[in-house]
């Protein structure tokens, strides 16, 4: 493939960031907005061209005998430290990166367009578009990374742009602390990822430099993924706490993904990240950046498969997180928080599906492509309908000027477009056919059932909870009891066209995306996987979803006292769920009481008394000496000369004596 398009895909958002970031202050809002939208629109077009060429052109470079190929469009040496430590920058094209190009640029374009209406009156409009471009650039660089280092660099860049955008309203203390929290938590997780990368590359680079894994190949995804047995062999013999080193390395790399994808116990930053502008939540904290963890596991999938313990770890973490987040989402008042926890839960779904994409080895290593394909499928459909839900929430917040459903209610009459698109999003996430969420969720559940019935049953329950809390949210916003304020004075209304158009487009995509023959396009080994709906699984999940929706309808369609009664059966549980089971308080306790109070106090004492004391002592001695000898600088020139003469004579005498 010609390298022009791939380079442009990365260069345009970066240039847009520079232009808007440097020249933005001189621009009018309209010019900055149009530039940002046009830039992202062109990147979207180019990405579509690349992805469609990759999937459908049938070129021998992309598909050989029905097997889709991985190819590096370009891969240039960027930093060559030693002959073993070489960092490359490149563009990797394979089914998942092509799919991610489509997802990222589509959602990013929708958000660019939407923000034009949503952010219209906010100060710093140009800066906002610059940051959006930076994020798009980083995320595109992340998904097309050819090696671990490139991925790590862009991984940190998306973290930075997430930080900048969460803290966009930098005058609000809550936004500032939320952005710091997000950055510190994800950075803390990335520390483990870095350790994992170092452990992996240390052992892999022990192989001969001219061997299959020597030099830059030790970090290259294609080289690593095409020979997992060699990678395993290079780490054989080394164990740590009963696990093989490769298992530990892969788990540590996954911890980085846990931070970005908000898996328990590193999920605490995502709900707070909702302090950012709502379109940002849709782009970064629902559709693209938070699925980077899933993408990471998918990228390393052959290595994860060869150490199945790490996949079990992923499954367990995902299953716990999915359930926890779903329960918490049932008791939130802020609509963006409900969506945030729903995102956590859905990403955990994808994680479990990836973790279940491995069957007991039959002959050597045996993969089950279903879980992988389903996870990627859900990543795609979830990005679309979750972005739709967030943008819908943005339209609601724009109209009502509050994040809480308590100041909404009965909005369906006032905001018909938002109502219908939001309903489509809810139906999609609940898994009602023919909306997209049903197809991907069905495949995921089938993969889980094929691994073990327990995971299938557990995640079906979570799917039921998903349907329940989404429709609870839907009814509380659009039905329940009409807020009396709407009658007198302020009447909420649908958003302007820049905001409604993305909603309609995404709703349309959510209706039809399920019919994409995803198994033919994206699989772990490039071979097509023929999707077939498994009737028992589909029937179960539809039944559960319909029952949950029916329950939500009974409870929340019209104002009644049932929710209050249910809450009062066990008020402690509701409060605990509302307070997110006190995870933030636990972190607060650990950081403030344990780390700051006990460990840091000693370190602070050492710093103040030993380090500072040494420096203060040096200064005090110098001052003491200078006070004592300052009388020598008397201002009397003749005294100086006398001393100088004395010294010269002494030196002369010493020299004389030495020579003699």
């Amino acid at each position, binding site marked *: 493939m010609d390298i022009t398009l791939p380079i442009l895909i990365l260069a345009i958002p970066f240039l847009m960031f520079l232009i808007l970031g440097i020249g933005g202050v001189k621009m009018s809002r309209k010019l900055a907005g149009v530039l940002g939208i046009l830039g992202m629109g062109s990147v979207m077009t180019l990405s579509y061209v690349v992805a469609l060429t990759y999937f459908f052109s049938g070129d021998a470079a992309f598909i050989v005998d029905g097997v889709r190929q991985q190819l590096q469009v370009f891969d240039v040496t960027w930093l060559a430290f030693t002959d073993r430590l070489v960092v490359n920058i490149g563009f990797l094209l394979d089914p998942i990166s092509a799919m991610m190009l489509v997802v990222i640029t589509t959602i990013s374009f929708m958000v660019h367009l939407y923000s034009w209406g949503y952010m219209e009156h906010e100060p710093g409009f140009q800066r906002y578009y610059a940051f959006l471009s930076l994020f798009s650039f980083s995320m595109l660089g992340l998904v097309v990374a050819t090696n671990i280092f490139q991925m790590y660099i862009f991984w940190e860049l998306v973290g930075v742009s997430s930080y900048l955008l969460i803290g966009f309203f930098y005058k609000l203390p809550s936004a500032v602390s939320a952005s710091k929290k997000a950055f510190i938590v994800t950075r803390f997780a990335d520390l483990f990822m870095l350790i994992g990368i170092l452990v992996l590359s240390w052992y892999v680079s022990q192989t001969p430099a001219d061997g299959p894994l020597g030099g830059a190949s030790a970090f290259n995804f294609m080289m690593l993924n095409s020979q997992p047995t060699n990678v395993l062999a290079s780490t054989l013999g080394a164990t740590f706490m009963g696990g093989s080193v490769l298992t530990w390395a892969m788990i540590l790399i996954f911890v980085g993904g846990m931070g970005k994808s908000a898996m328990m116990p590193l999920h605490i930053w995502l709900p707070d990240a909702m302090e950012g502008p709502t379109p940002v939540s849709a782009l970064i904290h629902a559709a693209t950046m938070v699925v980077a963890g899933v993408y990471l596991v998918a990228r390393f999938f052959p290595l994860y498969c060869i150490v199945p313990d790490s996949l079990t770890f992923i499954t367990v973490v995902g299953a716990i997180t999915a359930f926890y987040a779903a329960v918490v989402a049932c008791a939130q008042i802020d609509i963006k928080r409900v969506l945030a926890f729903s995102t956590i839960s859905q990403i955990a779904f994808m994680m479990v599906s990836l973790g279940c994409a491995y069957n007991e080895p039959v002959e050597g290593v045996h993969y089950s492509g279903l879980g992988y394909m389903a996870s990627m499928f859900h990543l795609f459909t979830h990005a679309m309908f979750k972005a739709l839900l967030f943008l819908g929430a943005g339209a609601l917040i724009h109209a009502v000027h509050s994040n809480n459903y308590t100041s909404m209610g009965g909005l369906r009459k006032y905001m018909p477009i938002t109502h219908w698109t939001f309903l489509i999003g809810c139906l999609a996430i609940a898994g009602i056919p023919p909306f997209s969420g049903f197809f991907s969720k069905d495949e995921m559940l089938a993969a889980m059932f094929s691994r073990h019935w327990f995971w299938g049953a557990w995640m079906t329950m979570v799917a039921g909870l998903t349907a329940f809390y989404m429709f609870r949210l839907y009814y509380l916003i659009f039905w329940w009891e009409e807020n009396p304020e709407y009658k007198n004075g302020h009447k909420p209304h649908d958003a302007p066209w820049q905001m409604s158009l993305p909603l309609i487009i995404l709703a349309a995509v959510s209706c039809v995306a399920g019919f994409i023959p995803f198994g033919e396009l994206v699989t772990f080994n490039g071979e097509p996987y023929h999707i077939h709906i498994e009737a028992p699984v589909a029937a179960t999940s539809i039944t559960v979803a319909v029952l949950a929706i029916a329950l939500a309808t009974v409870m929340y369609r019209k104002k009644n006292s049932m929710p209050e009664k249910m809450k009062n059966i066990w008020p402690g549980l509701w409060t605990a769920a509302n307070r997110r089971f006190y995870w933030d308080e636990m972190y607060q306790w650990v950081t403030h009481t344990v780390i700051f109070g006990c460990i840091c106090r000693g370190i602070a004492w050492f710093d103040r008394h030993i380090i500072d004391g040494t420096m203060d002592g040096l200064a005090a001695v110098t001052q003491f000496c200078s006070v004592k000898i*300052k*009388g020598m*600088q*008397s*201002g*009397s*020139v*003749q005294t100086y*000369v*006398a001393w100088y*003469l004395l010294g010269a004579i002494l030196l002369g005498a010493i020299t004389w004596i030495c020579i003699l």
Partner: protein
Amino acid sequence: MDLNIFWYLVPSVIMFAAGVYGFITRKNMIAMLISLELILNSADLNFVVFNRYLFPGSMEGMIFTLFAIAIAAAETAIAISIIINIYREVGNSDVASVKQMRF
């Protein structure tokens, strides 16, 4: 009687010692300046003498002395102007009256 190098160097040493003595003991800044000139002249004399006796074929020492004399004249002009300024400030040219330039 042969005029060897010491006939020149001994007056130079005497001039140097007298200059140093005068620079340290005189209180009047003009007198100190004159002492300073003595020191300079003794050094110039040494240049010329060493050039004449050690490297009879070359002229560098002589030329250098001419430069030194010119620069010494410029220095003297600066020194005189500084002394005049101090005189205007404190009303005399006593070096002990300049006590501001200390710690």
